């Protein structure tokens, strides 16, 4: 599942610097949050990983770290992801 994390990191790098961002670091702590980014992230995850993100999934905790996103994807696809 580490390829998931790699792909997610690549996506984030289009928006902000990820050189120092660990897989467990808060993605939003740097202050880069805007409506366009939020919807692009959701739309990208849905398309790239062929999943549907429901309102109930929109907990910040599911998106705040690369680890958390990979785990949510794993849950959605029925795969266990090591933290």
């Amino acid at each position: 599942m580490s390829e998931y994390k790699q792909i997610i990191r690549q996506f984030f790098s289009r928006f902000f610097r990820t050189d120092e961002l660990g897989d467990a670091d808060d993605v939003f702590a740097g202050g880069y949050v805007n409506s366009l980014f939020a919807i692009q992230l959701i739309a990208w995850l849905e398309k790239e990983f062929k999943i549907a993100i429901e309102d109930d999934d929109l907990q910040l905790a599911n998106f705040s770290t690369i680890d958390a996103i990979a785990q949510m994807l794993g849950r959605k696809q029925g795969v266990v992801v090591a933290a």
Partner: protein
Amino acid sequence: MSSNALLAELEKDREERRARSVKVVVWDLDHTIWDGVLLEDEAVALIPGVVDVIQELDRRGILQSISSKNDHATAMAKLAAFGIAEYFLYPQINWGSKAASVKAIATAINVGIDSIAFIDDQSFEREEVAYSHPDVLCVDATEFDAILERNEFIPRFVTDESKSRRLMYLSDIQRNEVEEKFEGPKEDFLATLGLQLTLGKATENDLQRAEELTKRTHQLNTTGRTYSYDELKAIMESPDHELLIAGLEDRFGTYGKIGLCLLERAPKYWTVKLLLMSCRVMSRGVGTIIINYLVTEANKAGVRLRAEFIRTDRNRMMYITYRFSHFQDLGEFDGVSLLENECSVVSDYPAYASVHIVNGMGCRQEAFA
């Protein structure tokens, strides 16, 4: 039908016509703006009165563009020679279909196709556009000088934003060009803009623009509720409400007043009844900054922040913005979702923007009289 019912019908019709307001006029060139075919006669002259109409539409804040089957460079040079080239955003001068050009303009300016009017002297061009886009208002070029009197072309207010709308779009085009060429993450690009956000209580001078924002903004709008000038004035003056307005500028120029927030204060909860932003600032983090400000103030006042959300087919972005700003969904009541933020986490403003609170919620009105 009784006369009262008839009057009501008439009023409704008028409302509908007013609601269908034209935001962009797309002009043909040959036999529409000038009196011949440019490629056959280089010495074409402007149709008398056409420049007056173009300038008046511009003053009213109605944007304009071109759809013409012509050679791009030759036609643009002619428009420049007439001194009117700068009135037209994203001119589509090519040999493709006009239906495609009209669509391209709507996409580039980011308006609905139903807010476009298309003026052309050739009936088959109007029919082609009308066939592909039934909601486009097609006008015969011979009737160009009558459009200024038509309701669809008369905005309810002409605000400062209307008068400088074209210039704001022009600076947007410059910004977008620079952004497209920018190599590196989006956040680094934002940092180059020198964004300045001003946020504070609306004053009476802001109310026309505030009404316009509630009517024109659909995507970045949490409830889609529209408010009239008088309703907004009452809210502004109510001790239990706050009406906040946000303006944004950067090194390319001003974006104008682009955000609005309507807050209802109760002893334990403050409720955001409406939060909206112009879609021109979709990637600037304005919503997050306003939410941060509200959370900060609610935290100081020791209350929780609630937000109402009414789902439309276009505003999911705002739902996600709330959820990503620590709002929990408490459920839906009569079609209105209620979200809540405990206001225990107060986030910093993003580093790429400087935020100026002018006449903020904590300020007493007298201090600014």
